[in-house]
């Protein structure tokens, strides 16, 4: 039950982030909701590689062979975080630029093209 709850958290955060994005009235808020959705993927990836009662996969003060969690998911999450942070930074720069030109961050007022 607790296990399923752990996975359910990831599902909920993913969907809530999408909801926030779709109902956003401010581009910065939208980007942060994107981060929220992304963080749910970190949670899921890490949960999938977890092992109860096991230690970190760093064998500097424990001997190799001790029960450890999966190191691959740690590496994947690290990659995911860097990718996400940089994409977020780029989108924030876009939002900044738009604000400078149009003095607004409301998605409904900012339409590049229509029809």
């Amino acid at each position, binding site marked *: 039950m607790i296990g399923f709850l752990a996975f359910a958290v990831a599902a909920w955060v993913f969907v809530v982030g999408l909801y926030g994005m779709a109902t956003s009235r401010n581009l910065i808020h939208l980007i942060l909701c994107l981060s929220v959705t*992304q963080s749910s993927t970190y949670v899921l990836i890490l949960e999938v590689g977890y092992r109860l009662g096991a230690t970190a996969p760093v064998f500097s003060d424990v001997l190799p062979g001790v029960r450890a969690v999966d190191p691959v998911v740690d590496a994947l999450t690290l990659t995911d975080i860097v990718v996400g942070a940089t994409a977020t930074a780029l989108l924030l720069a*876009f939002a900044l630029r738009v604000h400078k030109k149009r003095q607004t961050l409301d998605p409904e007022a900012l339409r590049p*093209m229509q029809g």
Partner: protein
Amino acid sequence: MTPETLAPLAFAVPLAVAALCAAIGPFVPRRVLDALAIATGLFCTVACALLAQAATRGTIVHWFGGWTPRHGIALGIAFTVDPAGGALAAFAAFLSTAALLFAWTYYDESGPPFPVLMLTFMSALIGFFLTGDLFNMFVFFELMGVAAYALTAYRTEDESAVLGAFAFGVLNSVGAFLVLLGIALVYGRTGALNMAQISHALGTHADALIVLAFAFVAAGLLVKAALAPFHFWLADAHAVAPTPLCVLFSGIMVQAGLYAVARVYWSVFSGALGGHEQTLRTVLIVFGLVTAFTGAFMCFGQRHFKRLLAFSTIAHTGILVCAFALLSAHGVAGMIVYVLGHGLTKGGLFMCSGILLNRLGTVDVEQLRGKLSGEWVGIVAIALGALALAGMPPFGTFLGSSLIEHAAEDVGLGWLPWVLLIAAALTGGSVLNALGRMAFGWGPPPDPEAKTPQFESPEANQGDKGFPLMMYACAAFLIVCACAIGLIPRAASAALGAGERFVDRAGQLAIVLKETPGAPLALPPAEPITSSLASGLLAAVLAVAFAALALFAHRLPSGADATKVLETMLKPLRRIHDGVVTDYVAWLAAGTAALGTALAAWMR
């Protein structure tokens, strides 16, 4: 140097050169960087072509870091190159080189970012086509994305460019997270990231997790591929991105998303989902047809020429998705040839639009009315491109369509190619319609009350720059190549062989994990295309007919009323494409929910 080492070379050399350009950028003139970039593009084209050719003797596998599999478990990342992937990687490099050549005359003193980002983008595309590891594919998806977002916003003085890039970035990022969701599910089940190993571990029976993992990965990749309702970002981004970029976006980037769906399906999920082909086929064809006709109908009445071409790309994505949906080697063969033919044609057409922008200062069809007369090279190029879009022989799109036609008959969907033909003819017709207005001033008089939409400022100094030979040469070259693809002898046979190799999951497993050497490509005889000649010519005729209707219907007694009725019918569709990024996100969620529900409900 074995062919095996070509794979990492083709992918890593552009990255190293990009860093070099960034490092020496402030100290050398821009031309040096451009030349470096073009040279790298040529190198990659040749390397990937050699790779593809070597792959015909047996799928090539390169294990990065020297980590070959132990006891059937993959430790590292592999590039798994089969003829299809190699050919598409070569095409990506080729198109990038052409775009860089086209950009030679385009930009003046904007510094190193352009070649640096283009090289990174090309490298990501090449890696995307060559990789055999699921997470590696995600990393290249994001690399491709970030470089593309940055390049789309290149003309930062125009804030609609930045807005277009923003929508592009947001939607594609959500797509990437969906892919990651699917990867996490698959990893949790199988503990593997190598595609062949995952397919081995998934077994032959599908349950909710497997079906939904495929649905999420496919949905995320189909955002890149601009399938409806994930397609809204494409038209906005194309209208504002610099022309060399539009060439790449419509020419190969969008199709890369679809290639990845096909690759993931065949290499990872086809064993487990194999029994549910009929359901998958139906669902995908529904989405594909909706996409094809959304794109086709939105094409008509577009004043912005680049946006018109973007909607035609969306329509062709629909056609390609239907080709994939046939779920056969024959369908894959048709898909690959069609991608090549369409990419060359669309690239050439976008280059023509870039020339328009450069010489005449605008891409607004109404403002250009009649201005194109006398430019016979341009008129012929655009006309040929339009007919190629419709699928006229001997263009590559025709060869692809004929392969798709045979594949559809094989699975009992003989009606499908005819419907797709209408969609293709509609897109070709709308380009001819625009051409008619621009070249000869035909068409109904412009509505004085219509709002003039905002349009882009010229991308380079125009007019007194003289005859931009490079631009014309590039555009013409691409259109000629589009024609040539259809004429290469045994092209169809090669495609069929490549298709067979692409869907051979067991063979890939053996080569990748058990390290048995691959077998040479079998070249099955292709069915003669004479039976498809009729439908190809019919498509061309239909395109001309649609264009004629659009141009001259207002002169007929009831024509004007009929046009008004059509316009009112299309209004809701146009209203949906409103440029509001939050709407696009809502549509993305709706599309994912629909795709997931359809697959999960009917695959149980």
